[in-house]
């Protein structure tokens, strides 16, 4: 097998479209407010470790102010509007987001490190579409719950992760507002910028003050939001460990809770699968967004008869993956989101070696500054290995083989997680047989990592509960009142 060094001419996306402020405040009740403790934290560009801006760090008092604003807006404005009127605001927000799509994409890439081709072609369009999708639900909610009277919940506290910052904001805010709730949202500390830009969009759209409040900060800010007694709903996307803390904090309250947590999703290739398509699918499943994807296909199961062939093709394909500056349009794998995450991934790579698995990484030059990780394959992985059981959240694939379908079903389901799964086979009946047995909220058959506002997403088991997207996503923000 030949190895190639790809020396592509850089094709950098311009950052001229983005005007960063030196400092960002909290967005509460339609206004920009300085945090009461006067504390700020730095946000950096993970691709070169350069300083981008300073972000307000909200404390308990700020969170309280934001919840009060949301409560006031809920009681006096938002819950009194008709669904049709709420929908119009959402449509307007969606349109404004579309008009600022390139700015949002560049901002997302600068702040989070994801390749510009992904933020430009996937994250931002999907986020806009999510608002368009739920805008249309706002005046049709009762139709989705035939015979079951429904009502909005009140104030929703929402906490989003750093892997798809604006998209996860859209997944949270769009259905919440469509269903008649107001929100206080806390973005992840490493990726606040697009959420703050979104706050500007809300202002521009003329959204009534207090309907959307954005409070930035670390875990302590999120915790203050979770325990606030006047919050009616908590929606969290993040790690299973934090999700469990949140579930515990909500005991004894009437807070409705949805959790979208971790995963260790199995991607299964059967011997009759179209091999080249499957190999491309595996690459997309694990290396998309640097592997910072809760539903990443991080466990690959290949039927024994084709294992050698598949692994050889994967190794060959790895040589043509372009790791580098996320703003370069050629880049396939951008920067790891933070130093801390890079250390976690590196820790797991050494665990994989120590566990006796065989490692493969392509030869490739990484930028000298910034946080980068080579795409990594592990073969000869035991089912009990930590790299096959624990979520790594990086570009690291654990490959195992299997002989029978019974065996692979057992292995695939042998995980505390149950977010997603992939199945590659040419046989339709087998797809349905397998997909109905896999304990996962999303099954991609002969494809992987596809998302759409109309498609419900969420996990089984310790991957969380509740669904986001589609008609089913409405249930997270409404209650049935008998």
């Amino acid at each position: 097998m030949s190895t190639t060094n790809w020396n592509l001419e850089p094709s950098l996306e311009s950052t001229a479209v983005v005007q960063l402020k030196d400092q960002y405040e909290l967005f509460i009740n339609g206004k920009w407010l300085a945090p009461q403790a006067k504390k700020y934290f730095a946000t950096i560009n993970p691709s070169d470790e350069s300083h981008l801006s300073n972000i307000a760090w909200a404390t308990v008092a700020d969170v309280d102010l934001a919840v009060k604003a949301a409560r006031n807006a809920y009681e006096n404005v938002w819950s009194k509007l008709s669904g049709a009127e709420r929908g119009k605001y959402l449509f307007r927000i969606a349109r404004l987001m579309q008009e600022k799509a390139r700015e949002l994409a560049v901002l997302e890439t600068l702040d989070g490190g994801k390749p510009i081709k992904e933020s430009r072609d996937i994250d931002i369009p999907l986020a806009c579409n999510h608002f368009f999708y739920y805008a249309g639900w706002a005046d049709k909610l009762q139709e989705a719950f035939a015979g079951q009277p429904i009502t909005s919940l009140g104030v929703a506290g929402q906490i989003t992760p750093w892997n798809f910052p604006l998209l996860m904001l859209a997944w949270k805010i769009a259905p919440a507002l469509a269903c008649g709730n107001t929100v206080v949202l806390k973005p992840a500390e490493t990726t606040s910028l697009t959420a703050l830009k979104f706050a500007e969009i809300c202002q521009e759209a003329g959204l009534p003050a207090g309907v959307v409040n954005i409070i930035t900060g670390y875990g302590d800010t999120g915790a203050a939001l979770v325990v606030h007694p006047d919050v009616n709903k908590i929606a969290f996307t993040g790690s299973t460990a934090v999700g469990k803390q949140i579930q515990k904090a909500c005991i004894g309250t009437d807070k409705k809770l949805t959790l979208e947590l971790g995963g260790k999703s199995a991607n299964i290739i059967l011997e009759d699968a179209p091999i080249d398509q499957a190999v491309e699918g595996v690459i997309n499943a694990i290396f998309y967004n640097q592997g910072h994807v809760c539903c990443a296909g991080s466990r690959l199961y290949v039927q024994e008869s084709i294992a050698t062939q598949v692994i050889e093709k994967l190794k060959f394909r790895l040589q043509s993956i372009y790791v580098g500056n996320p703003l370069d349009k050629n880049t396939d794998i951008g920067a790891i989101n933070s130093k801390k995450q890079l250390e976690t991934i590196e820790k797991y790579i050494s665990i994989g070696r120590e566990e006796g698995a065989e490692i493969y990484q392509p030869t490739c030059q990484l930028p000298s500054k910034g946080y980068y990780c080579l795409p990594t394959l592990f073969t000869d992985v035991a089912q009990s290995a930590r790299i096959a059981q624990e979520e790594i959240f990086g570009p690291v694939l654990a490959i195992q083989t299997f002989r029978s379908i019974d065996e692979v079903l057992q292995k695939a389901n042998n995980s505390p997680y149950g977010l997603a799964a992939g199945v590659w086979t040419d046989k339709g009946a087998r797809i349905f047989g397998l997909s109905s047995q896999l304990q996962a909220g999303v099954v991609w058959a002969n494809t992987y990592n596809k998302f759409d506002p109309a498609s419900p997403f969420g996990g089984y088991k310790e991957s969380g509960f509740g669904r986001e997207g589609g008609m089913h996503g409405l249930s997270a923000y409404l209650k049935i009142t008998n």
Partner: protein
Amino acid sequence: MEILKTYKLYIGGQFPRTESGRSYQIQSESGQAIANACLGSKKDIRNAVQAARKAQAGWAAKSAFNRSQIIYRIAEMLETRKGQFIEELVLLGHSNPAAVAEVQSSIDRCIYYAGWADKYQALSSSVNPVSSPHFNFSVPEPMGVIGVVACQETALIGFISQILPLIVGGNSVVVIANTKQPLSAVTFAEVLASSDVPGGVVNILTGKVAEMLPTLAGHMDVNALSLAKIEDHLFRNAQEAAIDNLKRCQLYSLNYINPKNQGLHFITDFQEIKTTWHPIEQVASGIGGY
């Protein structure tokens, strides 16, 4: 001389005594001894969860139509034993009209949920019009094994209203019955045993909630909990124990005699939604649909 019946547990389709070899006396409101019931233990809970897990996949794999028939059969069996259920309720201290009303409501509820078995899927599933050339659909699937603390205020209607929507949806259940009034639950087990519900789908234990619930709530092979109103600290501890494997918890405090407290969402509360994607090939010059 009257013979006091001893009510046993119902686990895996069998009527074992508790492995702990203990029992407690069931008394009427006036304090008169009516019967003895097993004082279930932690080990009984573990045995019941095992039986429930073993039975669940087979139950879920039965056709929805068949599950409907089987649950309708429960209603028929209840009807035949109506007299016994009313008598037991009266023995516990219910007035005769109240007992008749509760048993009749329970039969009606069985018929109501029997009818849902092959319909809730249509109403809670969707074909999703995604923007890419994929066929995408979402369907409900049973959560698996559900731990239940039955209503502690009613003897029969609460119990039935809690478990039927769970088994209609293909789940299996481990139920801790009403501690003070367990007779109807155990008599209901006799109904189940003579209907066509496979052993292990419904498992019923009598005894103290405080003793058995921690094991049930913390059991790693239980997927969800349906909890009726119980003492605050038990309630809280159960929810904390449930976090280990992220059990879905539903807390109900309802007046089940009221027919408003039946409905589709009691079924979907214990369903997961699975979404499946598959590419659509563009064939010939035709343009794909869905």
